[in-house]
């Protein structure tokens, strides 16, 4: 039975997609921050990919210096507010908090982080201003977490920055890809506006960079170029029936959900194929949209899933049923999808093998493929001397994020093959400093 009723309006949508990490009030924040031990060489900080000085900002919250806390956060991470809500804190900072070693609940670091950042976003407090104009211009391709962070950092260093963005909103997958119960569109965009108002970079929307000519023009107009294009559309399964009506890519499905909320039509029976975090989000999302039956089908055993345990638990709590060791053979249907044919698998000496004769069909009227995003290979292949690794990830110098073409720097999903927003934020900042170093030394 479905846990959720199909939302008929925005109010019901909000109920079904209730924020997982609501904003703390002053009292909660005060009591929670009081618990922090101010550890030496704090493990939480070591576990933060953006290296935020967590004990410091928590102490600042506790002493009533909310703005100072927000500054501490933004000094390390330009996506400070988004990260507070959407980072998998349980496996990062909060997972490393020393309290865990004593079976005491760890500090709620993510929510404290939001408490500080939301206060300045709401008040509009100016924490940064652009550095003195140094006459140099940098182009950024993609206004995702990596691109935006790179832009912010470059502006503090005095560069003019133009961001070319294919879509009509900033923040990339933060507003298009992340599950809606993690963060609302308004909250994401509020942070984007907050940053842009202070630092004044240009974003040229609806402007895809897709031709050699465009690249050549960028190269001649800008001192350096940052590539923050992330990944592409959902990869193809190369399977019969993929083009039937009712077969969707997970990233596209979630983007639709983020944009159109209760207007998105969900089918009665949904099969989600995949075992990563995106599959969990797509399955949870389908259930919260009111689908009667959501089956999450994964080729291997439950423990081999790439998704975090807490993401799977969240999907299950929304009513999703797991189907493991089921490898899809074909999507069946006549014009529209009617089911998915699977074959059972087992692990033999660590190798996934198909059990002959074990084929079966799960009936459904919608299939969501969460089988990874395609790489941005075609764009990247147009850039001279740009080396990619065997997984089509851009190769960069780990200290500067400079690519093998010295004029290009890169970061985010385009170099790591798909990680978290916080990694993109770190990369963008690192690359900005790499660009600064490269330009000032040339």
């Amino acid at each position, binding site marked *: 039975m479905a846990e959720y009723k199909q939302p008929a309006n925005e109010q019901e949508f909000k109920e079904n997609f209730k924020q997982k990490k609501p904003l703390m009030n002053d009292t909660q924040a*005060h*009591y929670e921050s*009081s*618990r922090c*031990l*101010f*550890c*030496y*060489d704090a*493990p939480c*900080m*070591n576990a933060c*990919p953006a*290296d935020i000085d967590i004990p410091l900002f928590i102490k600042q919250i*506790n002493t009533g210096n909310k703005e100072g806390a927000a500054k501490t956060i933004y000094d390390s991470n330009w996506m400070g507010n988004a990260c507070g809500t959407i980072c998998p804190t349980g496996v990062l900072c909060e997972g490393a908090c*020393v*309290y865990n*070693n*004593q079976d005491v609940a760890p500090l709620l670091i993510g929510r404290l982080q939001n408490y500080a950042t939301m206060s300045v976003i709401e008040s509009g407090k100016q924490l940064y201003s652009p550095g003195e104009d140094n006459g140099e211009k940098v182009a950024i391709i993609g206004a995702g977490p990596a691109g935006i962070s790179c832009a912010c950092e470059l502006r503090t260093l005095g560069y003019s920055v133009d961001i070319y963005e294919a879509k009509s909103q900033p923040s990339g997958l933060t507003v298009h890809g992340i599950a809606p119960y993690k963060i609302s569109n308004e909250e994401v965009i509020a942070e984007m506006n907050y940053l842009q108002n202070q630092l004044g970079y240009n974003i040229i929307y609806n402007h895809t960079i897709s031709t050699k000519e465009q690249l050549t023009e960028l190269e001649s107009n800008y001192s350096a170029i940052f590539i923050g294009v992330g990944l592409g559309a959902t990869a193809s399964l190369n399977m019969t029936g993929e083009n039937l009506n009712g077969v969707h890519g997970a990233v596209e499905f979630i983007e639709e959900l983020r944009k159109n909320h209760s207007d998105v039509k969900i089918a009665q029976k949904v099969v989600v194929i995949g075992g990563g975090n995106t599959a969990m989000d797509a399955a949870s999302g389908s259930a919260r949209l009111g689908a009667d039956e959501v089956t999450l089908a994964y080729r291997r055993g439950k423990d081999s899933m790439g998704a975090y345990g807490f993401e799977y638990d969240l999907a299950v709590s929304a009513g999703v049923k797991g189907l493991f060791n089921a490898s899809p053979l074909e999507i069946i249907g006549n014009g529209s999808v009617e089911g998915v044919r699977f074959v059972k698998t087992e692990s033999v000496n660590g190798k996934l093998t198909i059990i002959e004769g074990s084929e079966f069909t799960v009936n459904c009227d919608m299939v969501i493929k969460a089988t990874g995003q395609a790489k941005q290979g075609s764009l990247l292949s147009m850039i001279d001397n740009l080396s990619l690794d065997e997984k089509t990830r851009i190769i960069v110098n*780990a*200290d500067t994020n400079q690519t093998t073409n010295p004029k290009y720097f890169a970061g985010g999903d385009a170099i790591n093959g798909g990680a978290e927003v916080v*990694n993109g934020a*770190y990369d963008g900042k690192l690359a900005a400093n790499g660009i600064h170093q490269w330009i000032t030394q040339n």
Partner: protein
Amino acid sequence: MEFTNGSHKTKEMNKKDKIDLSVNFAGIKAPNPFWLASAPPTNSGYQIMKAFDAGWGGAVWKTLGMPTINVSSRYGSTNYRDTRMAGFSNIELISDRPLEDNLREMAEVKRHFPDHAVIASLMVDTRKEWEDIIKQVEDAGADGIELNFGCPHGMCERGMGSAVGQEPEVLKTIVEWVMEAANIPVITKLSPNISHITDPGLAAVQGNTDAISLINTVKSIVGIDLDSYAPYPVVDGKGTNGGYCGPAVKPIALHMLKDLMQHPEIKSTPMSGIGGIETWRDVVEFILLGATSVQVCTAVMHYGFGIVRELEAGLINFMENKGYTTIYDFAGKALPNVTEWKHLNLKSEVKAKINEDKCIGCDLCYIACDDGAHQAIALPTDGGRIPTIIEKNCVGCNLCSLVCPVEDCITMEKFDDGKEHETWHELTESNRIPDTWNDDRAGGKGHYVPEPLEALATKRKDKSGMRN
């Protein structure tokens, strides 16, 4: 259903019954030593009846004296992290209610609670005024009188309260007047706003007081408002010094109590301990230093009269475990162990020990010792977080065990064999104290300290490359 539980309970109760908490404090009798200090909780008969009903054994009525006017606001507090009112400050004066109302209610309380102690706190100016008011409270049925020589704000500007408490000669004179006039026991309440508490203490004894209570509040400013630049509590843009009390002042009160209880001419005077008492443990500590009744204000203002349940249960539990039947069995028992520094055993040696199974790896002990003590704790070089004590460097200062957030994780272990005993006093007597800097007998000579430059070599770990 089994009935063994029931009979068990009776046995428990019998055991509890053997304990007698009642006190006879300089002739003032009360069912227990838990009294309310003269303050807002004793402002009215209503409050005191409610308190007696809740389990308090006595109450010192809010100070009576002369007409006053109070300001608003009146209180400020010191909040420590998530702890509210770790210290509390007030700029309130003595009772502003009409004397007749107070006296009438006092008589009514005594009618309902004849066995509880009702003590009238008084503060007036001239000899005549003292004589008159003593007569009035005696007529109302008060069991005793407490002289308020402590209030450190407002009243002292009018030559009363701590203005008296800080002038031993004046204090003595007034105590003498009171002793001549009074037919009920007299307690002199002392102000801590003085260098040596024994000066007013001795003056009170020489004036023939029956008992002493201490401390009243400590002159203080709890904070400054960062917009109006006025001290808390702010009254129309200005403030004044307040009287500080609550948990923060307990150490000051304990010390002053000890000073009086070790003074040869004062120590036989009954002492009522006041200052920061909130838990049974506080009560026991005051009794161990010689108090035979305790008074509470801030804790009641914070939590209400109900906290007496915890005081009583805790005190009884302590007495049961130690085998005491009355508080007089252990009153003053800590006094012989409070000595001067020069009599401490220089040969005693303790060192810190970390329980690795309990350690959560916060490394606060490491940084506390390295930055704030003796560089006697090392971190593992393999990136682990469980520190180890470098025994040869540890001086046994206790710091790490105080900062460690885990219960009983760092313990201080005895290292000497207990056979040797040598004190600074003995060294002085036998002419063996070190007298030059390089004297081998001097304490710090052999102590390890790192070279100054090593400070710059131990930079924080570089974080780049931490991500994957």
